[in-house]
């Protein structure tokens, strides 16, 4: 019921490049397009189910898994209730360590802070390892308007960047692409052989290309997985070592984090590092868990702490615990809807079930379709390593979106008439009788293309009587 709406990517006023400034297509419409190629949907579904299965194998190896989730959940609850103290403690300790701490109220400020650092260094290029926050803030597009080129060094991100596409998954950014599509992209951008699909060959080409980038960039940006209040240090998890390659060769390390990434103590990493990798990819731990505490001699280290709507979400009692998210994407991989609609159908930096409860906080009108892109099956909440009640929040967002007027009037009228039929026993019985009569005697009234159900499904067979009629008849017989 959502029609094509002009997309403005954020509530900030900076300009976007033409590709990103496309017309927004709602989730149902985008999913319809995605499902035109059923073989591709099958492949996408199986690929992500494989990741879910790997997660299952990994978590069933540790009998205390559910206790670990509970511990992670409680630590994060504690964090959300003590954010002010933890963040200022972190700032003090990080500053003592020699890290320059910046605070950004929104995406615009985040981008301006980073641009100011680059401008001061007099550089026009930067290497960046994976950071969903920079996707959320549309940093690359912003910097492009300032004449700065950003190269993403995570392999998946580099692939989608070459294709001028956003990531479709927060852990596996190019999971929507087959080897052949990657081969084509590399042929076009890196000059690899046409038709090449061998992962070893393609990865080698990317490695050579990125090595040059690592060696020649003075500034490297990374995300942050966990920032530790008691030490003032932070941890970045990657599987490719690309964050380390970038920052160890650069004179300036900029790290950027949403303020909810804070954890109280270093010992809590023993909970979160185990939860994160097993949930994300089924690994016991990420290949690289890099701990940064202070800049090395001669290096500058900047850390940008971002709000961008998080305070507002924290103030919504029903939705605040969505900020517990550690960005593992387990809810993506298990979601039967995500697997069959693809990440781009969610038209937000963070797709999947968690994205659908985060995005309406930033912009209800633009993201009103997302909480409805779910069957409320509840699998997301069960895999969540920090026990966010994702499916319950999807239900609650629906109520909010309707009340705030973000649902089409056609739908409202339909539901209102349904409510009046179902509130009145006699109205309900008459409507039921009439419906069954029409279906039996004039099936063309329902069996046509205006009936969305009927497009790919038969209607139920019409019984000769309702249960109530049968029950009343039986009562008479028994008398």
């Amino acid at each position, binding site marked *: 019921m959502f029609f094509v709406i002009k997309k403005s990517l954020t509530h900030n006023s900076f300009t976007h490049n033409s590709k990103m400034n496309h017309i927004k297509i709602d989730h149902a419409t985008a999913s319809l397009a995605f499902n035109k190629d059923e073989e591709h949907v099958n492949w996408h579904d199986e690929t992500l189910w494989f990741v879910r299965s790997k997660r299952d194998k990994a978590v069933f190896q540790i009998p205390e898994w559910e206790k670990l989730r509970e511990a992670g959940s409680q630590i994060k609850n504690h964090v959300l209730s003590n954010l002010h103290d933890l963040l200022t403690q972190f700032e003090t300790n990080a500053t003592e360590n020699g890290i320059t701490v910046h605070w950004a109220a929104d995406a615009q400020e985040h981008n301006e802070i980073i641009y100011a650092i680059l401008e001061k260094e007099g550089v026009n290029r930067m290497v960046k390892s994976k950071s969903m926050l920079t996707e959320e803030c549309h940093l690359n597009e912003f910097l492009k308007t300032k004449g700065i080129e950003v190269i993403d060094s995570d392999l998946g991100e580099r692939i989608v960047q070459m294709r001028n596409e956003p990531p479709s998954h927060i852990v596996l950014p190019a999971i929507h692409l087959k080897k052949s599509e990657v081969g084509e992209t590399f042929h076009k951008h890196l000059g690899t052989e046409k038709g090449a699909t061998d992962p070893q060959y393609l990865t080698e080409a990317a490695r050579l290309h990125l090595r040059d980038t690592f060696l020649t960039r003075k500034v490297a940006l990374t995300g942050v997985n966990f920032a530790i209040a008691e030490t003032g240090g932070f941890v970045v998890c990657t599987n490719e070592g690309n964050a380390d390659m970038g920052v160890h060769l650069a004179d300036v390390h900029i790290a950027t984090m949403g303020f909810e990434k804070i954890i109280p103590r270093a010992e809590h990493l023993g909970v979160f590092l185990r939860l994160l990798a097993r949930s994300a990819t089924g690994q016991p731990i990420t290949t690289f868990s890099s701990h940064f505490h202070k800049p090395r001699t001669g290096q500058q280290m900047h850390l940008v702490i971002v709000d961008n709507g998080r305070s507002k979400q924290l103030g919504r009692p029903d939705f605040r615990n969505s900020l517990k998210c550690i960005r593992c994407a387990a809810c993506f991989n298990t979601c039967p809807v995500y697997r*069959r609609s693809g990440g781009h159908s969610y038209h937000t930096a963070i797709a999947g079930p968690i994205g659908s409860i985060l995005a309406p906080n930033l912009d209800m009108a633009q993201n009103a379709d997302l909480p409805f892109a779910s069957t409320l099956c509840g699998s997301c909440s069960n895999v969540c390593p920090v026990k966010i009640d994702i499916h319950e929040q999807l239900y609650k967002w629906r109520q909010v979106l309707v009340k705030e007027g973000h649902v089409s009037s056609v739908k409202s009228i339909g539901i209102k008439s349904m409510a009046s039929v*179902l509130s009145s026993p006699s109205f309900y019985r008459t409507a039921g009788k009439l419906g069954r009569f029409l279906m039996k005697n004039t099936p063309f009234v329902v069996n046509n293309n205006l009936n969305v159900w009927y497009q790919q499904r038969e209607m139920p067979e019409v019984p000769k009587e309702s249960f109530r009629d049968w029950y009343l008849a039986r009562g008479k017989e028994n008398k």
Partner: protein
Amino acid sequence: MKVALFIPCYIDQFYPNVAVATLELLEKLGCEIVYPLNQTCCGQPMANAGFEHLSKDCDNNFVENFSGFDYIVSPSGSCTLHLKEHLHGTDIQASTHIRQHIYELSEFMTDVLKVEKLEAKFPYKVGLHQSCHGQRGLKLTQMSELVAEPFSKTERLLNMVEGISIVALDRKDECCGFGGTFCVSEEAVSVKMGKDRVTDHTKHEAEFIVGSDVSCLMHLEGIMKRQGSKMKVKHIAEILNSAVS
């Protein structure tokens, strides 16, 4: 024991056989069943679409019909879960009593009636489709995501049926894609999810898809009929009530 039978609206209208089987089964098990005549719906269609605030009259009608019983039983995990979580009629006390005493059929047979054996026969290969609300909501069956002891109230009952053979599925608790208004508002994904569930059952040579929620079964049946599949759907009540002949 005074037990009220709640038959969800679409079962009343389109699947009366499921309701009949539920009633007969509970009577066979010694329950005194009352079917309140002015019942309609649990209110879920409105609430899941975001219009929970419009379901007040529906809730009040439910409370009027179902007050004063020891138990309320329904052959639908989804409607039962919705009532347990969201029934808020004007009469708070009566609403609370209902929320605490409403049971899905297999849950009621297991936890209240404590059924240990059944006289039933169904000599076919069946695939068990777990409805998400029954499984993850009412916890009728252990969930594949959790590191926890497996159990299944539904399967335990089915295993009491003579001749039945339950096939193993590749994805034992994947959603079928019905999802209330989702089935039309997200038609493409809904149908694809349903087709994939059907394929899983076909692949393992099930003759019937068996479930505890007619809404899932209605969706899967619609797809199967369009495909010309030989497989059929059955509600657990129809199987547990099947005659031994």
